[in-house]
Every structure is written in structure tokens, then in C-alpha cells.
């Protein structure tokens, strides 16, 4: 019994090193979910815990889920051209709830000229089509590490 159950002992686990938790979300009416499934599987295969909350969540639902699940990173994706409105809505709700310890990463069909504005809102990455999965995964890991460090000093 022991071998299977306690093959990895959680006794001396460190918060900063435990698996990253990511919320993947498309915060608008956009049914293109091929990419989001590819990312979900790739993140899982990179050892992360991935929350996928399904299609058509409102920005409020995205933030609620992120808080309740205590994710490290929210990864937003839209392919429908509505990213400027929808991503901003998510950021504003996070701000309104006083959440500063969740990283927000973006992706989708995002024209270059929109990227500075997104960065300014605090959304990093903003990956376009054809970005290698490794690049995205590395970025998420970096942001999550920052968040975990920041959180260690909270509470």
C-alpha cells in the first residue's frame, strides 16, 4: 500500500516548487477551442494543474474561478478580435477585487500595435499564432515563480 500512495511524500514539499496552477480561459463569445485544448494538454504534460472552465465564460466568471481555485496564472486567449475589450474587462475586475497576486498572460490573434497597451494593463506574453509551445510554457513558469515568491510573504 505504501509504495503507491506515498511514492512522492508531500511532507517536506515547498510551496514555491509545487505544481503550478493555471486557468485557461476565453473570456468572450469565441468558440475556437482547438488552441486551448492543445495548450491544456501541453501544460498538463509540463506538469501543471490546468483549470479549463469551458466556453463562453464572462469576465466575472473568469475572475471568480481564478480566485476560488487560487491559480497562479490566468492564461487568456481570443481569436475573435475582441481581446482589447475582453482582456481589459478581466483586468478591471481583478483590480476591483483587489487581486494583485495572480499573473495574467495573453495569446491569440493579437496585432503588434495592440501589444504595448496589453503590456501596460499588466498582461504579458501576448503570443501570436505559431509560437512554439516551449516558449509559452517557459513564460508561464517564470510568471508563476514570481507569483509564488510574492505570495510567500503574504498573510
Amino acid at each position: 500500500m505504501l509504495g503507491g500512495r506515498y511514492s512522492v511524500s508531500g511532507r517536506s514539499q515547498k510551496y514555491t516548487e509545487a505544481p503550478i496552477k493555471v486557468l485557461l480561459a476565453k473570456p468572450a463569445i469565441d468558440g475556437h477551442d482547438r488552441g486551448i485544448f492543445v495548450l491544456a494538454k501541453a501544460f498538463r504534460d509540463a506538469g501543471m494543474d490546468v483549470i479549463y472552465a469551458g466556453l463562453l465564460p464572462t469576465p466575472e466568471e473568469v475572475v471568480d474561478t481564478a480566485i476560488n481555485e487560487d491559480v497562479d496564472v490566468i492564461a487568456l486567449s481570443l481569436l475573435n478580435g475582441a481581446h482589447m475589450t475582453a482582456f481589459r474587462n478581466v483586468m478591471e475586475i481583478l483590480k476591483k477585487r483587489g487581486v494583485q497576486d495572480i499573473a495574467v498572460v495573453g495569446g491569440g490573434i493579437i496585432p503588434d500595435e495592440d501589444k504595448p497597451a496589453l503590456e501596460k494593463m499588466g498582461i504579458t506574453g501576448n503570443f501570436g499564432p505559431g509560437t512554439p509551445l516551449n516558449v509559452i510554457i517557459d513564460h508561464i513558469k517564470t510568471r508563476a515563480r514570481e507569483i509564488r515568491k510574492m505570495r510567500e510573504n503574504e498573510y
Partner: protein
Amino acid sequence: MDNFWDIKAKEIMQSFSEDKNYEKWKEAVLNPWNKKTGYKDKTRENSSSMPVKELYTAGDLPRDAAERIGYPGEYPFTRGIYPNMYRGRNWTMRMFSGFGTPDDTNKRLKYLIENGETGLSIAFDMPTLYGYDCDSKRAEGEVGKCGVNVSSLHDMERIFDGIDLSKVSTSMTINAPAAILTAMYFVLAEKKGIPLEKISGTVQADILKEYIAQKEWMYPPEAHLRLIRDMLVYSTEHVPKWNYISVSGYHIREAGSSAVQELAFTLADGFYYIEMGINAGLDVDDFAPRTSFFFNSSINFFEEIAKFRAARRIWATVLKEKYNAKNPKSMALKFHTQTSGYTLTWQQPLNNIVRTTIEAMAAVLGGTQSLHTNSYDEAWALPTDDAVKVALRTQQILAEETGITDVIDPLGGSYYLERLTCEMEIEAYKYFSEIEKMGGILNAVKSGYLQKEIADTSYKKQLKIEREEDIIVGVNKYVDRDEKPINTLKITDVAEKGQISSLENVKKNRDESKVSRSLEELHKAMEDDRVNLMPYIMECVRNYCTLEEISNVGREIFGEWKEPKIY
């Protein structure tokens, strides 16, 4: 025990024989050559994970090849559904278009007609596709972005302003609210004084593939299927030139399926709609001829051509043998093709013209009835006028310069292509059998089985690209260090504001008592499954009820739907 599908698959498998000369040639010529040149052969496969040999020979043809291949315009339609194919008439060049306000789209349609386009095809924006008005909170930032916004009949009137509905055939890519948009088109014809028998066109209305791939729905599957049944029955009785459905594999492929999965899942959907018509009490030959299909043409040239030919042969066989169709028109699978959006790259966008050309050529050699060619800038945004023109010109060059239209099914008889066509048929029959064992396509969709198959294929494909086992020029090989941005179409929020104020006007000028009365009547009709809803929806549309108001009646009665978990 073997079911119908297992038997069909076995029949094809048993028609294959061995080619002893091929084995001899391999031993005597090929293997020594490879050894001498130091070439190490390894298995190669197509997008459907089917291994392909280095050479196909006469021995790869089925023993009854002549019958299986047949002649054009005749059962089993492998070589095309018309006797003279493109010698008689070129395919319809149908460019999918729509963006911004109805006025923007009206301008684009007229531009395309002037440039030689022969059929209209309307793309709607996300709010319209999900049954929300432009002033809905959920529509914020999305109005006119991915297509044209239609919130009421008034918008439809603007899209077709100055276009004679009796002279064009119109295709509308709309699914969840298909019945409402169809009603709008019918009422528009009515208001223009054109009898419904005179209008022609297609509405996509294929809700099964929405649950499988495109994920645009409003209600649970059963509710949408009832609406499709009502459109089918209504158009059979009143609009004889209206294709009530376009069974679509395009989105299944874009969602990440293989060619075989696209083929199998789309035809399985098609069979379901045929059974639905039969269950509604119609004779199969009364409506099957107006069932049309919509396929993707991707980059693996021969695989795509084989897919189109296999689709025709399977459809003909099944309609005849399983559904007892008598009319050859019921057995002839007609289809529209769009080149693959997935293969377009954001990097080095001009390369996309080449990809689209090859894909378009596969569609033509596969015998398509109409074709949309993607524009090279579509990985970036909706296409500019200039990019659309190149895409349309691509079709015109294929049709008028290359000579590939001079001969009917010019690739017919190719050892490789014929063998591949047979093998794709077998794989499709295997999927049909699998689906039947799961309790039919509706159960397979609701349980997420097909969605999972697609997601798995798509992830495997992505990993192959990451490992550089699959090459994409400009993306994982021959990469340019500095990509320069190209000119793209910008859709501003002006469209959104314009639509909202236009809708406000519509609401101000309509007769509210008529609005609420027609919505109430629709509500009552919806509660009784036996009632055909089309006349009720048309009455709502006539009274300028909005898209969302009409959709909401169904939301109240049928509720919403959430996708199954697929991992």
C-alpha cells in the same frame, strides 16, 4: 456480429489483391538501390496516420476497380456528380465575406460581383452566430469583428440592398440561429416581391458539427435538431431551391481532425439528418437532393482528392443501400469547399497564396461544386480587398489558364489515388460502426467522444510540428528573423456604435404590440414539438423582433447547454 458498416468495410478489403511483380521489383531493383545509395527507408504517413507506400501499381487497384470507379454523372459518382463536370460549367466561385455593418458588407458583395464572383456567401459576427443582439452585454467588442452583424430584419435589408435575390444564390454560414436568419431571408424576398419558389441558396444549419467542432450553440442538441427538422420540412414544401442544410466537415477539420475523421464525422452527421427527414414522414427522395456538404481542402494534395471522391462514393452507396433512395440526385453528394484556414501561417504571409493554390487545385480535382479560396492575410485579420482579389484570381487562373478543367476527373485511375480512395472509405466505415456501437451520432456527440478524438489528433499534430517531424515552411523551417507586419483590415468600434444606434431606431419604429404578440405565439408553438416553427419565426421577423428576442424564447423553453468534459 457485423453491422452494415462492418460489411461494407470488409467488401472493400476483400476486393484487394497482391501484386507479385511489385514484390519482385522491390527485391531486385529498389532494395539494392537503397543499399547502394545508403538511403534508409522509413514509414511515411498522411494526416490520417495512414501509411503510404513508396509506389503504387496496378495491383493496388481493387479487383472490381472499373465498377467502383464508374463514370461521371452516374452511380456511385466517384468521378463527379455531373456527366460533363467543368466542361459544362465551372464551379461556383463563392467568396465568404462579411464584416462590420451591413452597409460595409453590402459594398464588399457588390465589389465581388463586379469582379466575377458567381455566388454570395455571408459571414456573420460572433454575437449573431450565438443569437445575441449588437447591444447585448455579451456582444461588447465583438460587433462586426469576424463577420457582419445582423440584429434584425432591417440589417438583412441593408446587406442585400440593390442585389436581385432572384438572380443570385446566397449561402449563409449560420447555425444555432439558422432558422431565424433563414426566416429573415425568406421575409426579405417576400418584401421584395420575389416568390419563395424563385430564391435559391444554402443555409449551413448543421448543428451536430457545432457540438463536435465549432462550438456555437444556444440550446441543447435536441432543441436545435427540432428547428432543423422544421426548416427541412418547410423548405421542402415552400422553397424548392433552398438547400436547408450544408453538412460541414470544414470546422471539424479546422478544429484539428484528420482528413479521415473529417470525412467520417461529416457523413455520419449527414446520415443523421437523412434519418431525421424520414422520421418526419418525408420520402427520402423529396429532400435528400437538397442536402449539401461543405468540406475543407488542406495541404496533403492526394489525401484531399481521395477524401472528396470517397465522400461521394460512400454517400451514394449508403443512400441507395441503407436508405433506399431511388432518385440518383439523392445519391449524388454535392459540396462546397474552402481551402484550409489552419494551414495559413502568420509568418511569411505571401507563402499562403501558394498553399491556397494547391489546396484549391485539390478541391477542383476532387470535383467540388463551389469554392472559397482564403486570402493570404487571414492569419492576421479579416482580408483586405486586395488580398481577396488575389484569392479570387487564383480560382480564375485555375479555371481559365491551367487546362485542368478540360478533362473530367483527370486523376481518375491513378493507382495511388484509387487505392487511397478505397482506404479512406474503409476507415470511414470503421468510424460509422464505432459510432453506431455508441448508440448513434447524437450520443457520441453528447458524450464528447468525437470531440476527444479530434482534440487528441490535433495535439499529436502540434507535437509533431514542435519536434520538427512535420515541416511548416516559415514556421519551423526556413524561418525569417525579422517578420515585417503587413497591411491588414482594421475594424473599428465605429461599426459597433453604428449598429447599436441603428437597432435603437428599429425598436423605436416598430409596433410593440405586434412584437409581443408574435413572440408569445412563438413561445406557445415551441412548447408543442409537433408544430412547425418556421411560420411563427417568420411572423416575429416580419414584426422586427430582434435576433436576441427570438432566440430568448428558445432559451426560456429549452435551457442552455454546456459541453462535456473531454479528457
